[in-house]
């Protein structure tokens, strides 16, 4: 009989050794790859070591090769750097989990039940735990039986199913608790039931008391050791137990009360059982006894509120949570593991360990109790639980100290593969990257409107600032960045970046969004210098004004690049040297604008008075519509933008007529550097003449303006780029363009596709109030005046929704100018304004702000060189908002220097910071999106290595729309 059993065992072992699993994919190649993980800090747990200041962990074939500060990255290794702020800890080991726990065996002892049979490696239920940094978990076969079976340890993710079972048999799971002493009766109907045999009745099952449980265990042990059966507890229970005893498997026994713990400790001592006390959350008093018995303990911590059913009220049974159990056990020298309760998912394991430290458990001991501690207790410390050469490459990468509530898991690795990473894709520019939460923690946070938080934190989410404060929320998986100081992105109030040298003043209603292009290198450099918003101003002005547009050079796409278009109107008070005519044009424009505004006011008043007639029959509505149509052909003065576009569309969109106009995109590789870059070509066809612009990093630094012809289906364009003459020829057909591109001496085949037929303008939320009358206009309804794109910016300025920037310098003219604008109801932004300081008192409250020219210092001719005046400081002191500007393209990057210089010459740092951020935004009416760190503002943040406006301070990192500019 015994021999048979042994043979069966051998057989079973053999069967398991057979390849029951195949790797899901041929990952052999991927596994052979050497990966080097890098982070700022690593808690090795092995030997209690904590490495700080840059750690490298080398991984191959799912195992750790080396870990340390001075570990060299092997040649050819793939480096995964989580940054200096990241903390790596061993993958957490959950000593308890709700997974796989099924209904228990019907018998009171069934050691043959294997929890591994309950393991579903295909389930995605464990992902939440993996996201919590847990990589291995114990599976209990069942609960509530004297002996309910053998537990297993498994990995919670990974494709190689064979690797995922760490231990098929990690512990013998049992209980002497109340639930194990109340096993229902057992009834096995005989087959067939005959008159002689009868159906029988359910037999009650023992034990019923703690002492009964101890007796039952003793009996079972005795039967197992002597090769007898003890079928009263379960068929084959003793036989199976004998097998388990031979392997030295730990006995993991649930014992909740002190009585139960004492009883099981005595049994373990007398029978020499390797005991693990499960659910020992109140075993603190017995710490020394447990140590003397050589037992270890698993402390389950309440993390779910009131999970212990603490609802007994004013009685003897009231229950209070105990926090110091783990600490007392550790002090006594009992090996422990901290675990979550049966019903709670292990994802909160880290939190449970932090709660347990409340009772005085040291942080390193708490971390050990959720990593190496459980691994040792479960007999899997040779594979998991710490970072040491030869062990499985299971890690949790955190964004802060492992037991801090504010840190969360950024990535989880199992067997050398990242199985979970925050926010999935991390490709720069992707929506996912922008939706990722970023927390910036600094010693000094300059909010922008004068306030400074020490310390301060900013949370960015979905491209916007979600929270600002001394301590902000840390959403799960947030990327945490720490540094000395942070401030809002700076604003260049008057810059040329993006014009690519063009000095032409565009028409008043020109859409500047057409000239900007996302992804430009120079733009990114400017942003990295700290200037995240540039108010793009064409060089030169016209009598009716030129548009200005606030945009973000490092925006990810057109939509997120353009703040508003137009942001402001740029006028010049003086156009020629003839000062007599100063202000003539501006006054004319203002008069028109006032007239225009008056029309709208009248209309608004009329429409307020007007009561709509009762609904008319449909036919009449239609006729009204028809009536309306001829009106749509507006006089040249009144141009409705949308209609204009529509008209353009009609003109250009006829498919055969215009196969050219639109935006074309493609990729090309130019010798000598063969790497593929993208090319973007905008073209507009007018008659046979084609105008356009090409942007491609390998062809030219900036935009290449192109001109040429389109005749008989053939396109020929030419232009001059920074790398030489560029010519393009080809045949556009049905949205595809195949042809040749010559740059200098290189010629290359080109394939482009038309991505859109519209010459796209940035789509943005319409800031203008919708004044368009409804389609079905009943008779008698007041007619809205048309929208005049040229006067609209002025009208918006009258309502405080836009800005008007006026070039004016002399004091007298400044006063005249301000007065003229005052009459029109506009607070202008003065540009230049060399002598504004002289009339500062008169300007207070009458201008939106002043953009001073570069020159910070002014020599007062009346007082000679003896007294230098800082014009910025003068105006700022007088309470007039000022803003810095570059009047340059990449020169915008000098903005922080200009401001620092102003401070060095006596301006208050606070005033200078406001001038760089909030004041600039406010005067240009873009303060609803940029200029301050506040909830709902765009995520434009600079991380600095010192206080802002110190010349020695540099910008460490820049975020635009919540995404880092690299």
């Amino acid at each position, binding site marked *: *009989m015994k021999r*048979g059993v042994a*043979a*069966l065992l051998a*057989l*079973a072992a053999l*069967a*398991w050794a*057979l*390849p*029951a*699993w*195949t790797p*899901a994919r041929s990952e052999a190649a991927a596994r052979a790859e050497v990966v080097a993980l890098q982070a700022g800090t690593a808690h090795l747990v092995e030997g209690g070591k904590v490495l700080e200041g840059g750690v490298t962990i080398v991984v191959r074939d799912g195992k750790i090769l080396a870990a340390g500060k001075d570990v060299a990255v092997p040649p050819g290794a793939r480096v995964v750097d989580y940054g200096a702020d990241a903390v790596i800890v061993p993958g957490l080991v959950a000593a308890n989990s709700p997974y*796989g*726990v*099924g*209904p*228990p*065996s019907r018998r009171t002892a*069934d050691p*043959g*039940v*294997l*929890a*591994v*049979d*309950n*393991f*579903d*490696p*295909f*389930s*995605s239920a464990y*992902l939440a735990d993996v996201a919590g940094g847990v990589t291995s978990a114990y599976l209990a*076969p*069942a609960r509530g039986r004297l002996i309910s*079976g053998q537990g297993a340890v498994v990995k919670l993710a990974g494709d190689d*199913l064979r690797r995922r079972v760490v231990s098929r048999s990690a512990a013998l799971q049992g209980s002497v608790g109340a639930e194990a002493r109340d096993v229902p009766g057992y009834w096995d*109907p005989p*087959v067939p039931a005959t008159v002689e045999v009868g159906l029988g009745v359910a037999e009650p099952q023992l034990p019923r008391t703690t002492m009964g449980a101890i007796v039952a265990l003793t009996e079972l042990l005795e039967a197992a050791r002597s090769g007898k059966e003890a079928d009263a507890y379960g*068929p*084959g229970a003793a036989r199976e137990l004998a097998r388990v005893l031979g392997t030295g498997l730990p006995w993991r026994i649930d014992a909740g009360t002190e009585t139960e713990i004492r009883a099981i400790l005595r049994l373990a001592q007398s029978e020499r059982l390797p005991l693990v006390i499960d659910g020992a959350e109140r075993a603190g008093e017995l710490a020394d006894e447990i140590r003397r018995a050589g037992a270890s303990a698993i402390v389950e911590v309440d993390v779910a509120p009131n999970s212990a059913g603490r609802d007994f009220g004013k009685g003897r049974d009231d229950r209070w949570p105990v926090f110091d159990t783990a600490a007392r056990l550790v002090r006594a020298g009992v090996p422990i593991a901290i675990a979550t309760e049966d019903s709670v998912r292990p994802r909160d394991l880290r939190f449970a360990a932090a709660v347990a430290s409340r009772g005085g458990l040291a942080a390193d001991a708490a971390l050990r109790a959720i990593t190496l501690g459980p691994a040792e207790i479960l007999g899997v410390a040779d594979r998991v639980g710490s970072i040491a050469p030869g062990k499985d490459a299971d890690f949790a990468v955190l964004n802060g100290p492992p037991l801090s509530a504010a840190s969360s898991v950024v990535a989880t690795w199992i067997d050398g593969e990242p199985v979970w990473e925050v926010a*999935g894709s991390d490709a720069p520019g992707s929506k996912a990257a922008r939706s990722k939460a970023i927390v910036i923690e600094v010693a000094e946070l300059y909010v922008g409107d004068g306030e400074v938080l020490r310390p301060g934190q900013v949370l960015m989410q979905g491209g916007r600032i979600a929270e600002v404060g001394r301590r902000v929320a840390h959403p799960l998986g947030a990327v945490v960045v720490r540094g000395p100081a942070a401030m809002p992105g700076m604003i260049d109030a008057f810059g040329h970046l993006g014009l690519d040298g063009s000095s032409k003043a565009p028409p008043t209603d020109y859409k500047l969004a057409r000239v900007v292009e996302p992804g430009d290198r120079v733009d990114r450099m400017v942003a990295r210098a700290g200037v995240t918003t540039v108010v793009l101003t064409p060089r030169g002005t016209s009598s009716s004004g030129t548009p200005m547009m606030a945009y973000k050079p490092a925006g990810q796409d057109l939509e997120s690049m353009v703040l508003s278009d137009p942001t402001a109107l740029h006028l010049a008070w003086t156009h020629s040297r003839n000062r007599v005519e100063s202000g003539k044009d501006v006054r004319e424009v203002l008069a028109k604008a006032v007239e225009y505004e008056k029309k709208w006011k009248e209309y608004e008043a009329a429409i307020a008075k007007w009561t709509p007639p009762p609904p008319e029959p449909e036919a009449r509505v239609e006729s009204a519509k028809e009536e309306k149509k001829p009106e749509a052909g507006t006089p040249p003065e009144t141009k409705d933008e949308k209609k204009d576009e529509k008209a353009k569309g009609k003109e250009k969109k006829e498919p055969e007529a215009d196969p050219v106009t639109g935006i074309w995109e493609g990729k090309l590789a130019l010798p000598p550097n063969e790497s593929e870059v993208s090319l973007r070509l905008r073209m507009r066809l007018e008659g046979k003449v084609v105008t356009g612009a090409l942007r491609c990093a390998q062809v030219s630094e900036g935009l290449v303006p192109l001109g040429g012809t389109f005749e008989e289906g053939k396109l020929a364009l030419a232009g001059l780029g920074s790398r030489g003459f560029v010519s393009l020829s080809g045949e556009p057909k049905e949205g595809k363009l195949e042809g040749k591109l010559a740059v200098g001496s290189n010629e290359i085949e080109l394939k482009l596709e038309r991505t859109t037929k519209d010459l796209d303008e940035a789509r943005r939320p319409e800031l203008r109030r919708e004044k368009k009358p409804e389609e079905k206009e009943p008779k008698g309804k007041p007619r809205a005046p048309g929208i005049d794109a040229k006067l609209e910016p002025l009208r918006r300025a009258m309502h405080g929704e836009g800005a008007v920037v006026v070039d004016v310098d002399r004091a007298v003219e400044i006063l005249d100018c301000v007065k003229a604008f005052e009459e029109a109801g506009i607070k202008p932004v003065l540009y230049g304004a060399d002598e504004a300081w002289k009339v500062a008192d008169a300007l207070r409250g009458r201008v939106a702000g002043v953009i001073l020219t570069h020159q910070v210092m002014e020599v007062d001719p009346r007082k000679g060189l003896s007294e230098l005046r800082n014009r910025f400081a003068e105006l700022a002191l007088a309470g007039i908002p000022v803003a810095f500007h570059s009047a340059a393209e990449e020169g915008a990057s000098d903005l922080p220097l200009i401001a620092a210089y102003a401070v060095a010459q006596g301006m208050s740092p606070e005033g200078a910071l406001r001038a760089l951020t909030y004041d600039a935004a406010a005067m240009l009416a873009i303060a609803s999106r940029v200029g301050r760190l506040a909830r709902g503002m765009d995520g434009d943040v600079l991380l600095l290595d010192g206080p802002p406006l110190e010349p020695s301070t540099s910008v460490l990192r820049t975020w635009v729309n919540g995404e880092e500019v690299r």
Partner: protein
Amino acid sequence: MPTTTPTPRLALAALTAAALAVSSVAAGAASSGSGELARPAAAEGKLAIKAGKVIPGPGRAAIDGGVILIEGGRITAVGRDVQIPWDATVIDAPDWTAFPGFVEAHTSRGMDRPNENLEVAPFLSVRDSIDPINFYFEDALRWGLTTINVEQGHETVIAGQGIVVKPWGLTVEEMTVKPVAGIKISATPKRTLSGATQAQVLRRAFGDLRRYLEDLVQQKKEGSDRSRREALFQGRELEGEKAKGRAMEGSAWKVEGLERVPRGEIDEKQEPLLALVEGRIPAFVYCGRPSDVRLALEVARENGFLARTTLVVSPVCWKAADEIAEAGVPIVIEGGLVHTERDPFTGKEIETFVPKVFQERGVRFALSASNSTSESLWYQAALATGLGLTREQALAAVTTVPAEILGLGKRVGSLEPGKDGNVLLFSGDPLSVSSWVERVILEGVEVYDRSKDVRMKHLLEGVTPPSTAAMGEEEEVTHEDEGSPPEAGDEKKDEKEPPPKNGGNGGKGGGR
């Protein structure tokens, strides 16, 4: 229009394992051209089917204007220039397509109830549970299923033995094609059990068998005759083969000295499992979750019946396709062809066309019409073709592959000389939605004619069968307004009494 001569049939007494041996001899004889040993069960007459098109089976060229000649229930010739004997009944169907009968590799229908409550009950047989007048069999004819493996349901750890039947006959014996199809095992936990306890029960069943056999051998060594007395007490047969002992034949484990024990003395409750371990009967193992596949294969391997195992899998088991492919076992895909789940990261719905996954890994698979009647095998095959299998692969999955799984590869699944005369006549292509099964010929006997299918006619054309005409008239007479409600209700009840009898008999006469 096709003409048929009724053929006399002989009722068959209990068909036992011995009969299977006879039939296999018959198969050999028929193929060698002598036809003397034609089985008594089927028609003795000759039947010739002249079809506009004959599709002999997957992977075979269709024959335009072909003739199928069936003698003694077996196909003797298929081709264009087949000489039709003068005494043969001829079905002339120039517009129709002849196709082999569909083979259902696993179903739990056609029984009064699919599951027994016991956990381990290999001694049960589906034979005792099959209900020949179950509507399922009538429907099976309508949809062209001619060979059906009826197995117990999934809610038992080790269930009883299945049986392969044809959907025609008044008794189970008449219907039987193969008396023991295999033992049904479930790797998915039944209600009240967990995966671990199910596995425990499953493993323990084989452990118990082993210990029982060892005990038996030990008793014999000690000269005890307890097992003999028990066998006599239970009235078991102890003569002939049963009186002899035989050495155990298991490929995974053996009990030495079993030749000392007369086979008749082995407990009937243990015998079927012993037959499984010894490789005498196959197994159908149900896997409802991919994680069950490991247990199923492990148990099959440990007990040496992997080679005779077929997995009955739910669609989600495509995730374990690699393990299944490695084990080399065939499968029956049950409960749909497409598996849908949500990606845990993106929340996107992912659809997987399951047969394709198995096809790519070289796993032999059969489709199963286990959803409902309207999703019968032709539907599954047509759907599979639409979703990415080739026509040949899809057709094989409902004919030749299930036939091989059932060990009937030489008897059913295609139209070849020597095989059973199971022919379907379709009004068009067998995978077309507009085609009907017009006729079903089972072992040379025409058993279904759509033009005489009263239920179908009633459903499609509103034609009331003559036998139920009285019911229709009375329905028209009944006016609820005239009488008080309870009276009307009583009347209706009275009227409805007869139809079940009538319908049952009439349905049999017309539909079967």
